[in-house]
């Protein structure tokens, strides 16, 4: 039996997805200016997962993410200005330009950082969950976002094993976009659904359509609830697709990395369009409200870009700061 989702939440999901989409599209657009001098791994097409999962999280819940983290950080509430400024390498960036796109951070919002080492973020999230337990912060939850590629790594397994052993409040969110750089899942893993690895560690595994934000919202809600209640970790697998190449603003289809028809097929499954259609159909958000949100999001993104572009570059002397 499905719980009703409040209009507030629906609007929040819509706004978050739209914000992520808009940021990624603007980054892609501006990238050729070569002013964002860092690799960008865009999550266009995968917005529903970040939005659906983070809609359940409070400020003091923690997330850890990967090289492809813009969406997660936005959904967790990160201000766009320091995010964009970080891509521009400015001191107004969330890491004063030290980290770039792959290392966004906002500890006060439950984002202790992101790592570009595949699989690295998974045990970190387990550690945050352990932290909550040891500090007696009941109800606090930690989420690891990672790709299907990270499932190849032993750290995934070691993390699941330990989280299950200790019954930690952590949710493992696998965004399965079928590729790790250009390697399809079938070149890296036997043909067993990722989610079917969960029972091997005595934890629930739930798969859902990663392009259906409501399905994500539902699956994540249950898992997060379970974690909050001290019932331990869950593995979630969301099938999705990235529209862009592994890194950078182009789609990489031309170079033959992925079949063009596969790409087109997934463009048709756009999570944002789908949600818009649903909201309209069910009359849950009026066109007027959508327009309003769209205008507002665009303003915020534009402001962030302006902010990012005009921030000062770090002094060379800053090089030596922050080592410890």
């Amino acid at each position, binding site marked *: 039996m499905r719980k009703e989702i409040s209009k507030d939440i629906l609007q929040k999901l819509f706004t978050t997805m739209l914000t992520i989409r808009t940021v990624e599209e603007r980054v892609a657009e501006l990238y050729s200016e070569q002013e964002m001098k860092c690799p960008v791994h865009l999550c266009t097409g995968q917005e529903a997962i970040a939005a659906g999962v983070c809609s359940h999280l409070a400020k003091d819940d*923690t997330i*850890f993410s990967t090289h492809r983290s813009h969406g997660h950080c936005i959904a967790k509430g990160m201000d766009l200005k320091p995010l964009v400024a970080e891509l521009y390498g400015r001191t107004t960036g*969330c*890491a*004063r*330009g*030290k*980290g770039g796109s792959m*290392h966004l*951070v906002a*500890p006060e919002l439950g984002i*202790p*950082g992101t*790592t570009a*080492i595949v699989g*690295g973020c*998974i*045990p*970190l*999230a*387990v*550690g*945050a*969950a*352990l*932290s*909550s*337990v*040891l*500090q007696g912060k009941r109800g606090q939850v*930690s989420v690891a976002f990672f790709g299907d590629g990270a499932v190849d790594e*032993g*750290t995934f*397994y*070691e*993390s699941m*094993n*330990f989280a299950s*052993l200790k019954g930690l409040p952590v949710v493992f969110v696998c965004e399965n976009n079928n590729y790790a750089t250009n390697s399809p899942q079938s070149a890296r893993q036997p043909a067993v659904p990722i989610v079917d690895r969960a029972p091997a560690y005595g934890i629930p595994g739930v798969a859902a359509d990663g392009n259906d934000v409501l399905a994500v919202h539902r699956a994540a809600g249950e898992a997060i609830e379970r974690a909050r209640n001290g019932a331990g970790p869950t593995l979630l697998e969301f099938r999705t697709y990235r529209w862009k190449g592994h890194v950078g603003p182009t789609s990489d289809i031309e170079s033959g990395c992925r079949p063009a028809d596969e790409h087109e097929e997934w463009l048709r499954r756009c999570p944002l369009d789908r949600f818009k259609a649903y909201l309209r159909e069910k009359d849950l958000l009026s066109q007027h409200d959508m327009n309003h949100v769209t205008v507002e999001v665009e303003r915020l993104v534009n402001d962030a870009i302006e902010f990012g572009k005009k921030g000062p570059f770090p002094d060379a002397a800053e090089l030596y*700061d*922050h*080592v*410890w």
Partner: protein
Amino acid sequence: MPWTKIQADEAGRPGIFGASAGTARELSYRDAIKEALAQALERDKRVFLIGEGIDDPGGVFGTTVGLKEKFGRDRVMDMPIAENGLTGVVNGAAMTGMHPVMIHMRVDFLPMAMDQMVNHAAKWSYMTAGRVKVPVTFRAIVGRGWGSAAQHSQSLQSLFAHIPGIQVLMPASPYDAKGMLLSSIAGDRPTLIIEHRWLYDQTEAVPEDPYFVPSGKALVRRPGKDITIVATSYMVYEAMRAAAELEKADISAEVIDLRSIQPLDGNAIIDSVKKTGRLIAADMGWKLCGVSAEVAAIAAEHAHDKLKAPVRRITLPATPTPASNVLEKAYYPTFEDIVRTAKEMIGNV
């Protein structure tokens, strides 16, 4: 483990760090560590210990015995044999408010955890412009002797010292063992403390109250004027014996206990070499790109014109560790090698 127990007896030699004159309380290196851990757990709720089998009756060569009983399983935690994953877990805990201490029975298991130590713990502060620190302490113990062989006897300080962002400390004395452990646990830098099993029975006066030995400061263990011996960890012990031996030949050796490999106290080396004009770098690890190279390089950079003799390095030979006892004997340098080298350098052979 029997082979270390047995070997410890074989090596059971008198203390070197000026046993105190009666009134002060003496502790072994082992008990100094245990006391530091207990006090850290006592003082600071953020501290917990984790490691493979640290709660078993042996208690990591005695250094954690009784702590689980006193502080509970949540704060003195056994763990799966999953070094990289669990290092990630302690890193994550450290990033979110805890001050974990992770304990490895052998330095040799650290390569398993290298990614989380090198790519994560050591870099996180920098990547986040100091917004998120990783206050984690790793303890790892060097095995030696009784056929420990290639995979159970490495002394890998140089690997970690090469990586900016992680402290590497090698206390040689009980006093430092306690004080460095306490300061590392209380501090907010990721720190690797490398201990040597053969030091565990060393005793000296150790204050009962908590105290903090800062990183980045070497210590002149014995002043001298003819030659400088810069040594690390257990080699400090061999250097002290060598210095005593050299004294008989009227050679006055200054022994510097490097203690802190990263940050490293270059000035202590330079000052001493400027005075003595001769330098032996005696490290527990290998030579190539090792601590001994760093020590020699510092002399070449900052005291080359004061050198009266070539710098010499005393390290392990460039081979993995052999098992056979006779090869082990040939493998490990001792005070005798230091004595011989010093005499050669001074021309007093």
